[in-house]
């Protein structure tokens, strides 16, 4: 333990700690741009500079370790002037179109300019315009709004282990780009959108399909059907300034109906269905000597990741489509038939916490008869915009419930939204499928929480099951490398692309801190704790669907509609066809 002085106050800190960390704990706020909680400092933006007695230069507090007896000033005139200058210089090259920017009001740069009193253009610089990158179905980039803080590069490389983007060039011509500056669509980008969450400005956004959905809603010849993912109802509240973690499922359903969607379905229903199919697939693989460990397939960012970086493990990936795509396939087959409507006249929309789902729905194999199973994917943020656009007051709207036949869900399907949820739901049902008895204690604490890697070894009716749960593709890489090196004690692995799972997906509300993500997770587990139907195999509508249409899990219709196949991809993200 050491002590130092900041603005005349004595502060205690651990040896080796950075000034910024110690100050934050003491409630002294230092502005930052490039700093990322949980990652080593990069010291790029210099916004966090402080004055250190005895040092000729200002020092960056994020990357300068505390020392015993050091004296610093965090808000001297010199410090404030330096920070103002930095923001002023950043703005000198920034477009002036804040009114048209979808980050306005949520932009860190805008907030800093306001907070630091940068109220006029001091430095006039000729701006070199770079082309937009709108090639990806998931993420749009505007390099002109980029301030080179490097947060997107770091999250892509250090957390996700993907490295689709990096700094290109030097000095004033430096920019963030993909390999050969070819565009995200032809890169290794897995579309997770963690870069969008990390970006302090409007340089990275989701590719919006709001106008396409509105056009579909206005078309009288189309039945517009919507499904909403488990993690959306516990995070949408934040778009309306309501406390993080508030579950507004009923209000959201009512809002979707008022917007004009003809049917509102709950993706948690098809999450229950996924458990039936995936659980049966796991048991089948174990009994018949299939490829193990089986890897989950719900998270489309992870799927592109494994296709690109670990193609030799593709036989291990469950052939189950994700819940979104299972629902999509059922809407344009079973539901269309039930309603006696031509599937060509159905527009299928889904609300997801995810940008990679936009890519997933465009995959060629996710289609029937030249029609995509899901037509448009909107993120939680886009739904927030749509609700505001349609003038719906989320405070006063009365709650409503989702439609049949895909509206009922168990809480096992709901907890898919948190890392570990799929595994917990699967173990609950696998136990029943193997023993005909319910698991005595449904809550599996070892699989819960925001830790990036969790493991559990259980014995179900003599069947030894080694289960692992990882979230964040960097963590997936570590585990997959162990598997490739010969690790044999695992049979089932849940992999979620985003750290913490869908509750922290790339399509979720911006500017959420770790506490907000934790609140979303707690909310999902509270729903699980409070409700009665807690296992997928007791979902009556899932049972009816099997009785009336699908037959049995892994049956012929399931195989055709609910299962898929994967392809090796090259470094441009394109399918390597001749290797299939």
């Amino acid at each position: 333990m050491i002590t130092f002085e900041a603005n005349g106050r004595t502060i205690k800190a651990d040896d080796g700690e950075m000034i910024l960390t110690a100050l934050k704990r003491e409630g002294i706020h230092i502005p930052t741009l490039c700093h990322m909680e949980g990652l080593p400092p990069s010291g790029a933006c210099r916004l966090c500079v402080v004055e250190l007695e005895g040092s000729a230069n200002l020092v960056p507090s994020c990357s300068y370790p505390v020392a015993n007896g050091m004296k610093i000033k965090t808000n001297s005139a010199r410090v404030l002037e330096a920070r103002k200058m930095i923001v002023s210089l950043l703005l000198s090259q920034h477009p002036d179109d804040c009114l048209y920017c979808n980050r306005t009001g949520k932009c860190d740069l805008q907030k800093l300019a306001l907070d630091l009193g940068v109220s006029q253009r001091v430095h006039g610089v000729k701006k070199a315009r770079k082309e937009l990158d709108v090639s990806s179905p998931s993420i749009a980039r505007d390099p002109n709004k980029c301030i080179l803080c490097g947060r997107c590069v770091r999250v892509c490389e250090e957390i996700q282990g993907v490295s689709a983007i990096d700094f290109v060039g030097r000095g004033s011509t430096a920019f963030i780009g993909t390999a050969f500056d070819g565009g995200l669509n032809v890169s290794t980008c897995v579309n997770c959108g963690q870069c969008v969450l990390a970006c302090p400005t409007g340089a990275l956004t989701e590719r919006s399909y709001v106008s396409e959905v509105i056009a579909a809603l206005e078309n009288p010849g189309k039945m517009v059907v919507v499904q909403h993912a488990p993690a959306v109802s516990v995070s949408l509240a934040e778009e309306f300034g309501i406390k993080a973690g508030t579950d507004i499922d009923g209000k959201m359903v009512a809002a979707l109906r008022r917007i004009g969607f003809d049917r509102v379905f709950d993706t948690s229903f098809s999450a229950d269905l996924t458990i039936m199919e995936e659980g049966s697939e796991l048991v089948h693989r174990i009994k018949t000597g299939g490829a193990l460990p089986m890897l989950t397939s719900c998270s489309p960012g992870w799927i592109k990741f494994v296709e690109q970086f670990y193609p030799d493990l593709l036989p291990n990936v469950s052939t189950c489509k994700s819940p979104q795509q299972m629902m999509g396939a059922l809407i344009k087959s079973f539901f269309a038939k039930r309603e006696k409507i031509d599937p060509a006249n159905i527009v299928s929309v889904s609300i997801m916490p995810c940008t990679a789902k936009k890519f997933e729905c465009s995959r060629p194999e996710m289609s029937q008869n030249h029609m995509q199973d899901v037509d448009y994917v909107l993120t939680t943020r886009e739904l927030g915009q749509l609700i505001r656009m349609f003038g719906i007051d989320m405070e006063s709207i009365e709650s409503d419930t989702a439609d049949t036949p895909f509206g009922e869900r168990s809480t096992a399907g709901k907890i898919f939204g948190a890392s570990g949820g799929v595994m917990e739901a699967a173990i609950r049902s696998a136990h029943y499928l193997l023993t005909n008895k319910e698991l005595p204690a449904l809550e599996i604490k070892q699989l819960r929480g925001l830790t990036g890697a969790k493991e559990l070894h259980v014995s179900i009716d003599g069947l030894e099951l080694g289960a692992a749960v990882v979230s964040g593709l960097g963590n997936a890489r570590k585990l997959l490398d162990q598997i490739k090196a010969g690790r044999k004690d695992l049979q089932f692995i849940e992999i979620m692309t985003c750290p913490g799972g869908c509750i922290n997906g790339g399509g979720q509300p911006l500017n959420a801190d770790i506490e907000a993500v934790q609140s979303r997770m707690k909310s999902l587990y509270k729903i699980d704790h409070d409700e009665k139907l807690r296992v997928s195999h007791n979902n009556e509508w899932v049972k009816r669907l099997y009785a009336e249409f699908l037959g049995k899990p892994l049956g012929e219709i399931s195989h055709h509609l609910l299962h898929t196949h994967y392809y090796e991809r090259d470094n441009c993200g394109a399918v390597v066809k001749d290797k299939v």
Partner: protein
Amino acid sequence: MKTKKKILLVDDDPDIIDQMSLVLTAEGYEIFKAADEKEAVEVLLSVKPDLAILDLMMNEKDSGFTFAHHLQTIYPGTPAILLTAVTSATGLSFDLMSPDARSWLKVNKVMTKPVRSEQLRLEVSNLLKEKTEHV
């Protein structure tokens, strides 16, 4: 033997023509190439394509639009894909969502460059309603 479906590729970037040609020839299509609107019009004198894939900004900024009109005048109903980087370059985006856009933009699909090979195969097969494995 089944006759090969004919696809006309119009783009002033020879690399893009070559890439598309490679992908689509492998799918069994017969490819006709043109580097601008004028060449494309000439191709239409001797060939009735089953599908055309057009760039937008070629010798003129709106070459793709005018050629799409020309194509519909000569061979009405021929499906066409506008494959363009116009949004990247200008910030303007074109889509077919409104009836108004569909009335003047004489194409069936707008795609943003660059595309992955499986996207191209999917859209071509959708417009020609080919029974393929879709990848």
